[in-house]
Each structure stands twice: as C-alpha cells, then as structure tokens.
C-alpha cells in the first residue's frame, strides 16, 4: 500500500464516525434519543479534555468539575448581566474557555507543586471550595443557582442545535488531543508521566508544560460546562459542582484507555448513555451510581489499562498467532550476554 493510501485509510475511520454522528439526529429524530446524544457528546468533550492533562501527564485530577461548573456559571452570569438573549448566548462560549483557563492557572500553580495522591487530594479540596463558593456568593444565586435565557425553539427539534454544537466541540477537542499526542508538547507530557524528575534533567520545563496542559484542559471543560448549562437552562451548586462528575469522567478514561486518544471517547460512549438509561429506567436514583462503582472496580481489577490498549494487544496477538509482532533486531553489543549464553 502506498503512503498516500495508508494515510487515507488512517483518516477513513474517523471521517466515517464523524459522518455517522452528523446524521444521527436525522436517523433518530426522537428527542429522547437526541437527548442521550447531547449528554454523551458533552462527556466525550470532557473526557478527552481531562485525558489531555491527566491521561498524558499521569496527574489524576478529581477537580475538573471546578472548570465545568465555572463554565456553566460564567455563561449564565454573563448572559444575565449583559442582557444577552436567545441564540446570541452561544457567542459567549469562548468566554467560558477564558474563565476555565484563568481558574486553571492559580489552581495549577498550587496543585501542580505536588504529585500523586497529594495532587488528587488538593484537586478534591479545591473542588469543594468552589462548590461552597457557589452556595454562598450572591452573584452565583446561592442554592437557587442561575438560569439561562429562554430559547423559543420547537420542542421536537430543540435538542438538535445543541447536538451539533456539542459535536463540533467534540470533534475539535479530539483533534486537539490527537495533535497534542503527536507533538513535542505531548511527548514532554508523557515523559513527565513516566519520570518527571528525569524529564526535567533532559530540559523539560515540567511546571510550564503541566500548567499549559492543565489550563487547556480546564478551558475545554469549561466550554463543555457552558453547553451543558445552556442545554439544561439552569445550574445549581450540586449539579454544576457535582463530585460524581469527576468520578464518571475518570471512569470513562480508565475504561477506554488512559492516555490514548480514542480510549476516553469510547469510555464516554459506553458510560454516559448507560448512566442515563439506568437513571431513566429505574426509580432508584442510586442504582446507576452503584453500578458505576462496580464497573470501576471491575476495570481496575480486570482491565487496568482499559479497552483500547488491551483490545489492541488481543488483535495483535490474533494477527500474529503468538509470534512477536515486530521481528527482533539482530543482537548488538547490549545483547552480547544473551548471545554468549546461547553459545
């Protein structure tokens, strides 16, 4: 296969998936189904954005709801204060990205000074600070929250514009995640994940790299929060700053494959519709949370690397029928000991 043909084949699958996603509301116009689509795409955005920072760098954030909630509140407060109404409110979405990035910088400057478990604890602490602020500040509306401007759209097709906005954001986020993974910046993030001190010793400005990824991830998550808010028409402290939000996003990335581009997308496509279905089907509101925890346990125990990496290994093993996928190179000096042992 020529290089051009290989490259075309490489992009064929993503293009086919985007085309399928684009015609989804046409094929399934039922608002109940498109509602699933909107929420799923919002979580595709969030899981991919989370993965750009946490998956690539290895810093597991349980505080991304800070950005999600802040994006929602920023959009609502800005629309109310500036008297922006109707579809013009969508023009405020870039503002949510700026708000997310601006919050991420001081948040990151504090949290990214520490690593591993301490980092996770700090992100949780910051999350609760933001939730408490949302409850107690007057401009956030206290426990009542903030409502979005009214949209005079037909009920039957109300979901569709949100679906396409979410799809556009999701495609953009995935493209950015893919480009970052292939870039020098992405390589530095993955080097930090493997051994941060060693990376610093090879010239990687670790704090700058981590903070940039954190701000980018926060900005995109805030945009997703803005879309989510506008879709639901209101935000309150427990919904905007929801502790289960972070657990769901982490589970999506772990289930699909942490640090891969496609893993978090797959995880979101499985987890979010599943959660929505369980919540809608069973009156016991906690069933989806119980199952969420059970799935988390199962993933950690039986598939710790996630579906995409594990599935990839299975496919390779089947293709090669147990033979090594790459022919081992001829022994060099480093292999001399092995070569000597063979003799």
């Amino acid at each position, binding site marked *: 296969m020529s290089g051009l043909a290989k490259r075309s084949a490489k992009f064929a699958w993503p293009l086919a998936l985007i085309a399928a996603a684009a015609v989804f509301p046409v094929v399934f116009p039922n608002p109940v189904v498109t509602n699933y689509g909107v929420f799923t795409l919002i979580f595709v955005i969030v899981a991919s954005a989370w993965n750009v920072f946490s998956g690539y760098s290895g810093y597991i954030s349980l505080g991304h709801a800070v950005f999600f909630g802040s994006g929602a509140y920023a959009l609502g407060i800005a629309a109310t204060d500036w008297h922006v109404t109707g579809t013009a409110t969508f023009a405020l979405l870039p503002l949510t990205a700026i708000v997310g990035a601006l919050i991420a910088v001081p948040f990151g400057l504090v949290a990214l000074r520490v690593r591993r478990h301490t980092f996770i604890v700090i992100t949780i602490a910051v999350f609760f600070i933001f939730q408490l602020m949302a409850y107690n500040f007057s401009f956030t509306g206290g426990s009542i929250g903030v409502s979005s401007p009214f949209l005079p759209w037909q009920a039957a097709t109300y979901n569709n514009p949100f679906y396409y906005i979410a799809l556009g954001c999701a495609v953009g986020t995935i493209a950015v995640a893919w480009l970052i993974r292939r870039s020098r910046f992405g390589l530095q993030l993955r080097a930090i994940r493997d051994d941060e001190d060693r990376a*610093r010793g090879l010239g990687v400005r670790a704090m700058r790299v981590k903070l940039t990824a954190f701000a980018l991830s926060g900005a995109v998550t805030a945009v997703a929060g803005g879309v989510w808010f506008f879709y639901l028409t209101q935000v309150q402290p427990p919904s905007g700053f929801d502790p289960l939000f972070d657990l769901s996003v982490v589970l999506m990335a772990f289930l699909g494959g942490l640090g891969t581009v496609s893993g978090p997308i797959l995880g979101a496509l499985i987890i979010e519709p599943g959660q929505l279905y369980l919540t809608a089907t069973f009156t016991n509101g906690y069933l989806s949370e119980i199952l969420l925890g059970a799935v988390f346990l199962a993933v950690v125990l039986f598939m710790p690397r996630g579906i995409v990496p594990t599935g990839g290994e299975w496919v390779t093993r089947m293709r090669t029928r147990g033979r090594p996928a790459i022919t081992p190179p001829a022994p060099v000096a*480093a292999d001399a*000991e092995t070569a000597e042992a063979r003799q």
Partner: protein
Amino acid sequence: MSVLLRTDGVHKSYGGVRALDGCTVEVGEGTVTGLIGPNGSGKTTLFNVITGYAKADSGEVYLADRRITNAAPDKVFALGIGRTFQLTRIFARLTVLENMLVASRHGRSAHRKQAMEQLEFVGIAGHHAALAGTLSYGQRKLLELAYVLVADPEVILLDEPAGGVNLSLVNHIGDRIRELNAAGKTFLIVEHNMEFVMGLCHQVTVLDSGSVVAAGPPDIIRTDRRVLDAYLGEDLDEDDGDPGEDA
C-alpha cells in the same frame, strides 16, 4: 587546559548526615575525569548538586565561568550538562525513539535523523520502535547515554556506566566514551570498576566522607596512600608516612 566544570567548597547534609563536606572538584575541558570513592562517600550527591537535583547548603558550582549553583535541572541541562543515573531512568512507556526525542533541541525533521544517528552510534538503532521498558538493563544504559548525547551537551556526567553490565558491554561503552572524548566531549564519571576508570580517565578524583582526599592522573592515584586508606579503612593518624604528593 582550562577548567570547564568546577565545584567549590560544596557542603550538603541530609538531616544529621554530612554527604558533602567542602567538596572541591575540577573537570578540565576535553578530559575524562573519574570520580571514585567508597560507598557513601558523596559521589552521587555531588552529581545531584551539580545537575540541580539537590540543593547545596553552601559552596558554588561553575560551568566555565558561569555560576550554576542550585539551578533547576532543566536549566542545567540547557546550559550544557547532561547526566545519566546509577539506576537507569528511562521513559518506560515511550518507544526508544521517543525517549531520544524528549531531550532533542532541534527541529522536527532534524531531530529524528539525529536521534537515529545517536542510536546507531550506541548500537541499539534496531530497537527504535520498541517500548523502552522492554529493553534489557544493558540496552537501557546505552539508551540513557544516547538520549543525553542527542542534545549535544558540553559536559556529560555518567553515574556508574559500567555497573551491572557484562564485560563486552563495558568495553562497548568505554569505546563510545573514548570516541566522544576524541571529538571534544568532556566527561565526569562515577565508577567502581577500577580497571574501567584507570584505563579511560585522564584525571581521577577520590572522595571520602564528602571530601576530596586525592586528585591526579590514574598512575599516581593508583599508588596514593590516602586512596588506599579510604578504600581499606586505615587510620591516617596512625600513619607516619608521607600522605601523598598529589592532593
């Protein structure tokens, strides 16, 4: 010969343990300098202080005439000092080629070519697509040397390059160091393999209890009484002989 790397009276303590006690070491430009001493004498701590992994309590570190005391590791690397570790530290979940590209300072197309050349040089180019975590210990040593080289540092600090590897690989590593030194690279090498050090180094500095006890050419260090005392544990105070002429 000018001095390229110099530590001047460096002190470093961990709690009550004095790891470096006024340590002054000089590395001449274009030389291979060995840093030897018994376990716990402060060799790796000195490496850590030079490369910014540990902060000196007092004293100074200079690269040429530039003061680099307590500079961050990334800055030290950018200034031209690369190092390897006693226990190899590679990026296990990156491929061998990706490991090389982390340290590269060149543009996208140039750095890939240069990285492959360095892998060819150390002899592991055939593994470039493999995950670094799948390499043998010896191959990891070579990879670590290669990815330090890819950024073309002025001074290369090697922490036990011959430790835990077989004889043929020791010779392979020694040959690569000689070639690089002939091309103008300066080395400071911590090593316990005396044959390796004496056969490779132009100068040898001996540390004991965080201080320099002797420094000079290998032939003189080999017979220095203080060096023998440091390794064999004899008490200098009980010795009435000449303490040595090359301090």
